[in-house]
């Protein structure tokens, strides 16, 4: 898997839902969206582009199920502006090529909005297609910064980009761990470098000092000389922003070398595979991540959790709640616009502010999420748990 342009490869914290819908792959016909979308009366057709085949398929299915839950609830209460929501799912397989085909297909079917997306590398090439069609493109879990740098006015990311994560990480280092010297390392992938740089920037001016960011090629398995360097620098914590395979190797070698300093990873390393591969050395390590379905608190979250379980006989996936919030973002925007017309819904999304499961949902001018909750996880007895001390929410 290439490291650039990432996504969340991760994190099947709950059980995997097994119901894979195998998407068919009909030839792409790009018809005019506007022509066909007007035809549907009484229904509000919403496209969902998700990986439903391939390695990321479980995550795609979990997000889709979260959306289905929201749609059921809204339709049971009379729908949106008198229209019942109908979801149309297409497989993007977490691949750029397939994602473009899926987008063309959805647009030609006349969907009036897109709420989906898991892999940034698949989401990015499909962006211009939704933009040309003039419909809202609400990305549920894809969160590369590059997704919101093309100037498209219809792109909204529910999963916050690296900036907020960096903020959470630096708050954790300065206010909870209260450490002097943090050693930041990335794996040279776009996402990891971004988080590393932003964290360093965020720590500048605090009492916590960082050293030069160490960029470790993603093919490296041996961290011993990096560990020598951080030891001689006097680092008292490590922040690893890359992926899980190297995280496991890094922490094992760190502990083997006799260094017991806190090891904190960014969300790219949050997956049960990391815990398995790092073995006993995973215990006590931390991770920063946008709040996952399994760590939501409050009565709305409990209702979500129990209705998800009773409908799908599975625990919500890490991003199921984002799918749920994505549908509500669209519907709230449509209601406040008083119209299902895509251009009006897009305008309303820019003004949107409501309390979702994953925190306040609103978007910056470029479409990036504002107001999401971040949490710090700790590995306890081979499982992710909420760390006992969380940095204050900003």
């Amino acid at each position: 898997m290439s490291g650039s342009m990432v996504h969340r490869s991760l994190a099947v914290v709950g059980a995997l839902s097994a119901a894979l819908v195998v998407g068919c792959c009909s030839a792409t016909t790009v018809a005019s969206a506007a022509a066909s979308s007007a035809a549907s009366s009484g229904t509000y057709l919403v496209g969902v582009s998700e990986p439903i085949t391939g390695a990321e398929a479980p995550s795609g299915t979990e997000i889709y199920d979260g959306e289905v839950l929201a749609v059921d609830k809204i339709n049971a209460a009379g729908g949106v502006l008198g229209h019942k929501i109908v979801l149309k799912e297409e497989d993007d397989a977490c691949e750029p090529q397939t994602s473009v085909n899926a987008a063309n297909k959805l647009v030609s079917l006349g969907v009036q909005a897109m709420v989906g997306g898991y892999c940034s590398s698949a989401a990015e090439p499909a962006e211009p297609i939704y933009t040309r069609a003039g419909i809202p493109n609400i990305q549920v879990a894809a969160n590369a910064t590059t997704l919101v740098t093309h100037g498209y006015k219809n792109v909204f990311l529910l999963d916050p980009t690296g900036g907020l994560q960096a903020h959470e990480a630096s708050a954790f280092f300065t206010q909870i761990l209260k450490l002097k010297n943090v050693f930041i390392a990335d794996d040279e992938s776009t996402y990891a470098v971004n988080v590393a740089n932003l964290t360093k920037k965020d720590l500048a001016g605090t009492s916590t000092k960082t050293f030069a960011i160490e960029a470790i090629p993603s093919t490296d398995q041996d961290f011993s000389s990096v560990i020598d360097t951080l030891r001689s620098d006097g680092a008292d914590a490590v922040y690893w922003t890359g992926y899980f395979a190297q995280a496991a190797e890094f922490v094992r070698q760190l502990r083997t070398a006799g260094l017991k300093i806190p090891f904190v990873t960014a969300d790219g390393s949050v997956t049960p595979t990391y815990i398995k591969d790092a073995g006993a050395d995973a215990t006590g390590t931390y991770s920063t991540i946008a709040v996952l379905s399994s760590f939501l608190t409050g009565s709305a979250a409990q209702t979500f959790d129990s209705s998800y379980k009773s409908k799908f006989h599975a625990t919500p996936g890490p991003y199921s709640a984002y799918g749920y919030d994505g549908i509500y973002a669209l519907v709230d925007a449509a209601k406040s616009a008083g119209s299902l017309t895509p251009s009006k819904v897009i305008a309303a999304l820019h003004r949107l502010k409501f309390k979702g499961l994953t925190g306040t949902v609103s978007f910056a001018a470029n479409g990036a999420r504002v107001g999401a909750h971040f949490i710090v996880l700790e590995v306890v007895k081979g499982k992710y748990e909420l760390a006992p001390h969380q940095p204050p929410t900003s």
Partner: protein
Amino acid sequence: MSLELVVSDIVAGLFLGASFALIAVGYSMVYGILRLINFAHGDFYMVAAFISYTILGAVTVGTKVDWGNVVWVGVVTMLAGGVLAVAVAKLVYSPMRRAATLSLMIAALGVSQILENGVLNIPSWGSNYLPFPVTPPSAGFTVATVHYTWTQVGIIGIAVVLMGGAYWIVNHTMVGTAMRAVAQDRTAAMLMGIKTDRIISIVFFIGGGLAGAAAIMMSLYYGEINYLMGFSIGLQAFTAAVLGGIGNVAGAALGGLLLGVLESVGTGIFGAQWALLFAFGALVLTLWLRPRGLLGERVGQRV
């Protein structure tokens, strides 16, 4: 950059280099006898790692290391690596005996792809990073604040013994003499009554076996395996073989250790993102000053 850091980087580099060296020896011996750059060699290492993973997983209870198990699985892994290498040589390279060197090299690349994608498609192996079934204990000793484990010491020790064994076979036994004869002139060796096919098989077997030994030791140390793990290390081992003088066992060993130290010290001085640039810069400089590699001899003397 303190002296202490340089010293600990050199030690770390020797450890990294030991794995390069074990794989480089196989690369080098095969090149010496067939003039073939066997790009599939790194994948012998990878397949051997998966074999040791499966066997060790089946016999291990809990995560505690049973050294008896590790030793016999290690021997089986070496044999498996050797058998795999011989099978590839017999099935793929042997029928191409009269083909151009370039065709052989492309075939080797093909074998590499077949092995990688073959492992990818085996259900219990696949594309995931798999945790190695046993974790070595962290007991060891501390020198100037740096902790070394007995496992690390053992790995370097075993690597040295195995490479010494390969050197001894090539230079001090009848079989080794036959290998050098085949390397110098295959036709003449055949006319002298040497069974060249068998000698070639033995060379592949030794190379594959050393890759197998490296595979189980490194998997034990790094703790996870993946179907692409052979690619990068294979490339570095090939580089090490060239650095030391390809076709020469002692050169490959020296090249491997040196490349490991260069990468490690490069990381210490310039940071990990510059390590390969530093190491390969040193390679280019070495080849510029000494095109045959450090211990490279005249072409006629190779193996």
